[in-house]
């Protein structure tokens, strides 16, 4: 590329040939006002506000900086009296159409316009075409276009109707310099939905993610809807964005596996009397956590659906836990996170907080003390499982509130507690595919949670050697317990690695290939998948490393071809004879 020399506002500079004047000026830090320009779009040159004076020899021209390619030896003036005069005229014309748009009024003030000569119009679209171009060139939806000509020219959708092709991405509203386009969404005006997914199409999964890299959410990414956009690709200087990446399945050989598949939040829709999903101000534990998070949709502000700050909040404990109809077990974490919520609500909003509990289970270090601190903070505790949440008021006090009906078992009375917001302390459940995972790894799975080898002596190992479990996939537990178990699992794996060798069971089973008829009855019996079939020799073989010597296969073999070492048929027959020595014939 040829390099040219030019002068902007007296500054001598070099640039590549045919670079636009605007680009060169911006690099030098010289401010040229723009309205119809956007770095991701081709220059359009319709608003004319970037007009500059270009001198080449004796020739003087007024050109638009955004699309005028610089040539060798030109001299550019971006703020000469003539430029200022022209821009002032352009602004006055603009105001004749859009007299009350802030960005134009600001520019007008900058150029000394006190009252425009041609009056002020009431429109707010300056026909810069940014929205039309972003919709067709970037988003690829082609929803917006120019209609009519001359004074009646306007931006619109086809026939002015709501377009089916509009994906409501909001790009047009984003680029509009005058704010003429707004996204109409009632929810956006008040508290947003509390989605548990990402808030933007490109996001870092969570703050401590390893690797700490942003990912693209296919569901909301414009590129995966229209095939266009790729703005992220264009702005990424190191070209790290790749939209063509697909999920791949990779085989990795490992010697040990730690399962940490976690839990799923109990879906309170199963308890219809709590009205989750019906009353917008009834939140699950995770939804409240999302709202309360400083990086959440409300920036950590606790608010009702209509944007108001709640004056009273009810927290219902044991939702889906310790419940004959749902899960009988205690989810262990809810008491403490409910107390945390109560504390934060009190601190952030000063609202009255009511906890409806069966038993307070503050079992950990410092937990009971925290509970006592809350009692002193004037958080109310009502002992009783909430019966129902209703919005049907019986008196004026209850109007417009959510009413929690509960039997207060400490005073022996049925109460109605009106509150603005209800948080359900939802319990922990096993993930939906826990049984499938357990089958894949040959471990046992009681009521959805993986079973450890021994509840006290081997809490992180499983029935299958080399498979370890950590966290809530083994059972509900809080973060300290999870960290402790995960640490134990990691060191169990480390000790396997550092030892460099493993011990195998001595009392394994073996197949006598001479006697094996190849019936394959035993093949599906092995709980540890140690049995395979040799297709070539048509006999069954047992993997000595995987076999734990339970002998189930030996008991099933119709041709007695399987020898369960240390527990052979002969040995066991002799033992039976031995214990019956005194009655045998």
């Amino acid at each position, binding site marked *: 590329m040829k390099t040219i020399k030019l002068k902007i506002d007296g500054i001598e500079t070099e640039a590549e040939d045919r670079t636009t004047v605007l680009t060169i000026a911006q690099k030098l830090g010289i401010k040229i006002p723009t309205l119809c320009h956007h770095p991701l779009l081709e220059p359009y040159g319709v608003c004319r506000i970037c007009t500059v004076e270009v001198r080449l020899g004796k020739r003087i021209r007024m050109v638009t900086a955004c699309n005028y390619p610089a040539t060798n030896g030109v001299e550019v003036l971006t703020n000469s009296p003539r430029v200022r005069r022209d821009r002032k005229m352009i602004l006055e014309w603009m105001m004749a159409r859009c007299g009350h748009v802030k960005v134009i009024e600001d520019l007008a003030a900058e150029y000394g316009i006190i009252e425009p000569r041609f009056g002020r119009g009431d429109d707010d679209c300056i026909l810069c075409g940014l929205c039309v171009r972003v919709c067709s060139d970037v988003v690829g939806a082609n929803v917006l276009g120019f209609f009519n000509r001359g004074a009646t020219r306007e931006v619109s959708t086809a026939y002015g109707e709501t377009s089916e092709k509009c994906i409501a991405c909001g790009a047009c509203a984003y680029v509009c310099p005058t704010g003429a386009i707004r996204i109409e969404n009632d929810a956006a005006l008040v508290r947003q939905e509390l989605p548990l997914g990402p808030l933007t199409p490109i996001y870092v999964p969570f703050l401590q993610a390893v690797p700490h890299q942003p990912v693209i959410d296919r569901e909301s990414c414009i590129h995966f809807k229209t095939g266009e956009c790729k703005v992220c690709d264009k702005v990424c200087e190191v070209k790290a964005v790749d939209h063509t990446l697909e999920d791949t399945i990779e085989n990795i050989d490992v010697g040990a596996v730690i399962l940490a598949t976690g839990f799923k939040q109990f879906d309170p829709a199963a308890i219809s009397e709590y009205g989750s999903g019906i009353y917008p101000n009834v939140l699950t534990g995770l939804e409240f956590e999302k709202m309360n998070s400083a990086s959440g949709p409300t920036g950590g502000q606790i608010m009702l659906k209509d944007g108001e700050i709640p004056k009273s909040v009810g927290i219902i404990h044991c939702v889906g836990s310790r419940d004959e109809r749902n899960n009988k077990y205690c989810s262990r974490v809810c008491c403490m996170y409910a107390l945390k919520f109560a504390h934060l609500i009190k601190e952030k909003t000063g609202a009255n907080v009511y906890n409806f509990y069966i038993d307070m289970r503050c079992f950990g270090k410092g937990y009971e003390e925290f509970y006592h601190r809350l009692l002193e903070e004037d958080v109310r505790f009502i002992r009783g499982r909430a019966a129902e949440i209703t919005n049907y008021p019986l008196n004026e006090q209850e109007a417009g509130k959510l009413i929690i009906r509960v039997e207060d078992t400490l005073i022996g009375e049925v109460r109605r507690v009106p509150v603005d917001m209800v948080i359900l302390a939802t319990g922990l459940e096993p993930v939906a595919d826990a049984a499938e995972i357990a089958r894949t790894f*040959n*471990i*046992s799975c*009681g009521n959805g949670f993986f*079973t450890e080898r021994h509840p006290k002596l081997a809490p992180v190992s499983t*029935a299958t050697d080399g498979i370890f479990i950590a966290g809530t996939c083994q059972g509900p537990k809080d973060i300290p317990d999870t960290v402790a178990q995960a640490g134990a699992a990691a060191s169990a794996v480390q000790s396997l690695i550092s030892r460099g060798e493993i011990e195998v069971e001595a*009392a394994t089973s073996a197949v006598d290939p001479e006697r094996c008829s190849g019936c394959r009855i035993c093949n599906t*019996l092995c*709980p*540890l998948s140690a049995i395979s079939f040799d297709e070539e020799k048509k006999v069954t073989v047992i993997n000595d490393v995987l076999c*734990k*010597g*339970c*002998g*189930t296969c*030996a*008991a*099933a073999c119709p041709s007695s071809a399987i020898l*369960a070492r240390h*527990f052979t*048929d002969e040995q*066991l*027959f002799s*033992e*039976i*004879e031995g*214990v*019956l020595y*005194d*009655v*045998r*014939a």
Partner: protein
Amino acid sequence: MTFEPKIVGILCNWCSYTGADLAGTSRIKYLPNVRVVRVMCSGRVDPTFILKAFADGADGVLVAGCHPGDCHYIEGNYKTIRRMALLKRMLADYGIEPERFRLEWVSAGEGERWAHVVNQITEDVRKLGPSKIRPAAKREAAVPAA
């Protein structure tokens, strides 16, 4: 003197054998009629073991393993359930009352339960009298003269 049945107990190593051990270390008193054979898993119990025990003169056979879902080998006891259900149907054909055979679940922590299971099967078999397929001479000897 009453009839003292001879019962063969086949116990899994991880739950029932340990449970029986616990009954002993806990000093729980129970009838001495069950004679124990240890296997690694109740899934190892070949139905022929039970037939062999009866053929050799046992008055009853007790197979005990881990509770369903608690098997050390994940699912060995489920296979036992299936096999023993089939065996129980066949026993009558051999002239053995199906009540002489029993499949029970005793965990490693259930010493009390082990004692209870043993007492129960012993009393039940005692009521049935000596096994009919027990060698004749031994059968007469087993029933004390009144």
